[in-house]
Each structure stands twice: as C-alpha cells, then as structure tokens.
C-alpha cells in the first residue's frame, strides 16, 4: 500500500510538518542533555495513548524515505502491537520494513533491546510507559522536577534498599533505574535488567518516547550509563545459565519461557524473534 494511493491523503509520516519539527527539536534537546526528560506536545494518533504513541511519534518525526524500519514488541516482530505500528508507518511513508536487526536503520521497540550489537548508523526508539523514576517518590511533577534539578535521588535508592532489607536482593525486574553521565537518574523503559548494560557506551543512539506522559529523552552514543546498585549488592542481570533456545540453540540471550499444556513441557525460546530467525536462516523483509 502506497501512501500516495490512499483514498484519504495523509502527510508523509502522518504527522504534520510543524508537529514533526517540534518533536525533532525536543529530540535534539534530549540528545544534548542525556537522561533529561524533555516535555513535548504529544499528538493524537490513530492508536491509543499508552500503546506506543511516544515511540511512534519519534519514529514518524525522524523517518525518511530511505530508512528501513523494524518494529518489535517484547523482542517479537509478529505481535499485534508491532504489526499495527509497522503497518501505520508504511501506510503513511511507504518505507521498507525488515525483521533483520542488521538491515534496519530505525528500530522501534517495546521493552527489549535486540541481541545484535547495535551500530552507530542505527537509531533505537523505545516506547516508554513511565518515564519518571521519581514518580514513586512524589506524584507531583513540580516535586520530581525539583528533585531532578538538585540531583536528589534518595527516594530511588531507598526503593532499592527496601528490596534488600526485605528480601535480601533488589527486587526490580524490568525498568531498573540507571544513572546517565553521573547526572540524571533515568528509567530505561521496562527493558529487562539483561538489556541495561547495552545502553552503556553504546554505538547507537537511543531515543525514548512517552506519549501519554508527554516526555522525550535520549542516551546518545558513547554515554556513561550505570545501573544503580549498592556497593555490597552489585548490579546483576538475569542469570540465563542452563537455558538454551529450543528453536535455534542460542545461549546467554534473553529468553521467553514457554509452557506447552498438551505435553506439559517447559522450554525456552529467544525473546528476540529476528535474532532467532536469522540464526535459523529464516529472515526476510518486504
């Protein structure tokens, strides 16, 4: 489907040019101040807020005709949310899409960073439900912004300590807070702890968009990103030892655990479906 051939004519990449310009300006500011949440005027889209509208607006603002897009949801190219977003972008831009991480120039993702090492010519766009790591400390925006400005993050450290004192370890699974360039504490969006180290000194640009909360933030390439942890309880990613992908045999990747109710069998599969398909020689675009 070509965007020119739609019955109703949409502007390239759905958003009007003014909106795209504003979002790009917010992105530039976010890149200039790594980890800082830049407010932006989140637009109405044909998908509901909280369904990836932040990431989608970033993608629509930065995408050009030559870009190749990959959209994933929890690692999968085939989930409904990923497919719908991909369809919307192609319908309004006509860009090529792919499931191969290596071929993509823009990857929009919900809750995962791909297994392949991302390159400097790629942009990773992450959808963010809750951008504010201080939200649990205070429900008031004016308070959380003041605390950020004063780099006062005791409340977040206290939350980590609560897990240690109650359960003997930090209890955060996804969205474990990180310190960016020793200045701003940032929610890395609910990626598993397994993916946190990928943000540190990465080659690619990470952009984070929260459409419902109207915030954009960024981790530019080669930025210091340190997961928060106490000295005597060092940060650790999920332990994947002993797990093997049933389909491709991969180890030390992030897995989905699958239960087959007819056989009663438990097994693991790569969460990154593009990575798994490539290993099995089954990869394609359109």
């Amino acid at each position, binding site marked *: 489907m070509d965007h020119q051939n739609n019955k109703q004519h949409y502007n390239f990449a759905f958003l009007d040019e003014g909106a795209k310009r504003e979002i790009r300006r917010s992105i530039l500011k976010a890149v200039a101040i790594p980890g800082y949440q830049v407010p932006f005027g989140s637009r109405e889209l044909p998908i509901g807020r909280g369904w990836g509208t932040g990431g989608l607006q970033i993608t629509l603002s930065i995408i050009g005709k030559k870009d190749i897009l990959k959209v994933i949801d929890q690692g999968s190219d085939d989930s409904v949310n990923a497919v719908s977003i991909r369809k919307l972008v192609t319908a309004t831009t006509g860009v090529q899409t792919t499931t191969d991480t290596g071929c993509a120039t823009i990857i929009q993702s919900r809750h995962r960073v791909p297994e392949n090492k991302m390159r400097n010519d790629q942009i990773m766009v992450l959808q963010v439900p809750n951008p504010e790591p201080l939200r649990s400390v205070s429900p008031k925006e004016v308070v959380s912004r*003041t605390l950020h400005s*004063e*780099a*006062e993050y*005791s409340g977040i*450290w*206290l939350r980590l*300590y*609560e897990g*240690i*004192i*109650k359960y003997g370890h930090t209890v955060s699974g996804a969205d474990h807070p990180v310190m960016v360039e020793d200045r701003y504490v940032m929610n890395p969006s609910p990626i598993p702890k397994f993916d946190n180290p990928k943000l540190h000194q990465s080659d690619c640009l990470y952009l984070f968009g929260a459409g419902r909360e109207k915030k954009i933030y960024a981790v530019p390439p080669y930025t210091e990103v340190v997961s928060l942890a*106490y*000295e*005597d*309880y060092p940060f650790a990613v999920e332990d994947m030892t002993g797990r093997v992908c049933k389909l491709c045999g991969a180890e030390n990747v992030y897995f989905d655990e699958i239960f087959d109710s007819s056989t009663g069998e438990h097994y693991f599969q790569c969460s990154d479906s593009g990575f798994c398909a490539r290993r099995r020689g089954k990869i394609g675009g359109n």
Partner: protein
Amino acid sequence: MPDDAERLGGISLNTANPVLRVRDLIVRFGEGCNYCLQGAALEKGRCPYCHSVWALNKVSLDLYKGEILGIVGESGSGKSTLLRALYFDREITGGEAYISEYKDGEKNIFEISNQQKRYIRNQKMGMVYQNPIMGLRMNFSSGGNVAEKLIAAGIRNAGSMTERAKYLLNHVEVPINRIKEEPKNFSGGMQQRVQISKALANNPSILLLDEVTTGLDLSVQARVLDLIKRIQQELGISMIVVSHDLSVIRMMADRTVVMLEGRIIEEGLTDQILEDPIHEYTQILVHSLL
C-alpha cells in the same frame, strides 16, 4: 553575651559559641501592610487592617551545646512553626539562623541553596514530629526509614546501613526482628521511637522535637521522655523540645522560652520560669498547672 551567662547562673554552658543562633525570625501569612510592617500592635498575632497573620514575629534565641531548650506556649503561639522553619519545612518571611557546625556559624542557613539546606537537614539536624505520619514513610520498613537519612547523606553500602538501623532501633527498644516491618503496623509509641531512631541516624548535632509525647499514654510518654533524656546525656545532642505540657518541659528542659502570639515573651532557666514567672501570661500558664 554576658547577660546570658549571668542569667544561666551555675549551669556550665558554652554560651560564647551557641550551636544554633536564631535572629529576628519572621513567618508571616499575608502580604503585610504599612500598619503591621511598622511593628505596630497586633491583635492575637493578626494585623487588624490587612489581616496578615504573624506566626513568628522577630523570634531570636540561642541553643547551646548539649542543652535541652524547652519551648512552651498555647496552641497557635508559633512553637511548631518555629521548628518547621528551622527544619526548612516551611518557608520563612525574614530573619536569620546560624549553625556552628555549618561554615563556622557564619552563613545564614536561610540564604543557602536547596541542596545545602538538604545537607543541613540530613546531616546536622534531626526532627521528630508530633504525628509519626509526618516523619515516617508508613509503607516502608522501619529499617528503610532509618536508612533513608543515611542514603540522603550519601551512604551507598546496604550492609552498613542495616547495621546502623539495627543499632539505633535496638537503642530505642524496637525489637530488631521487626526491622523489615512497616511502621504502620506499630503502636503509636513504637512509631514515635522509630521516628527518634530515624532522627538520630546521622548523629545530628541538633534534634528538634515537636510535641513528641502528645497523644501517648502516660507510661509510654514516660518511656519516650526517658529515652530522649538518655540520648541527650549519652550523645550530648542539643535539643529543642516543643510542648504545651509544662510537666514535660519541667522534666526535660534546662532552659525554657515562653511563646505567645508569635513572640518570645519570657526566657530563662526552667526552674526560674516555673517558680517565679514574670510575664502575666506565664503566670497564668504556670498557675493553671498547679
């Protein structure tokens, strides 16, 4: 100040170098007008023309090392407002305060950045509120509550924080095996003791206590007061104890100031104030106790 030393008689206080010096502290609700800003007479702390409330009207006091200073006065006299202003809970309208342990007592603590205020709040002061809900996070463990102050002071070692929390909770007789439990499960007296241990976490040099025993039954009151007295003797912390209960003041305070309508109307040794009150209001106050 020679007259201070004179007034204090036999008590050996280092009056040359107060731990805390407060000068002309003003907290006013309302803009003020030509009438009240000139310092003209107010009606119960309220300007008859512009209706501004002068919660604190040029309050000055000194707190010396290791002493307990009592503040008494009726409801609305400005006692709690004074403590909250000193703990940066409440914005002030004017005035100065100096802490000997911060920049050698030469910097007005109301004129410094929020970060520096937070530093003083977390490292130099402790506060125990009348209502534990104000001072504690009821949904965090009691250990976490104590640790909060340590985290704010920059400690990033969970084990050492847990050790400190255990030591302090033990000190205030909260069973250590309840360190994981939230204060919301505790009785009022126990919550108050968790609050005290939290306030002590960073060995503050100044402890502010706002009506800490109000609402506790008599036996628990006595134990909390004993505990505070013991801590003061062991650690030599200077304290300001606010209470409307003269028996608490009599038991705790070395020196006492009496507040009325936002002003200090009388100050001196606690015994002097209770035995030989000079101001009319203090006479009524003391008389109503007897």
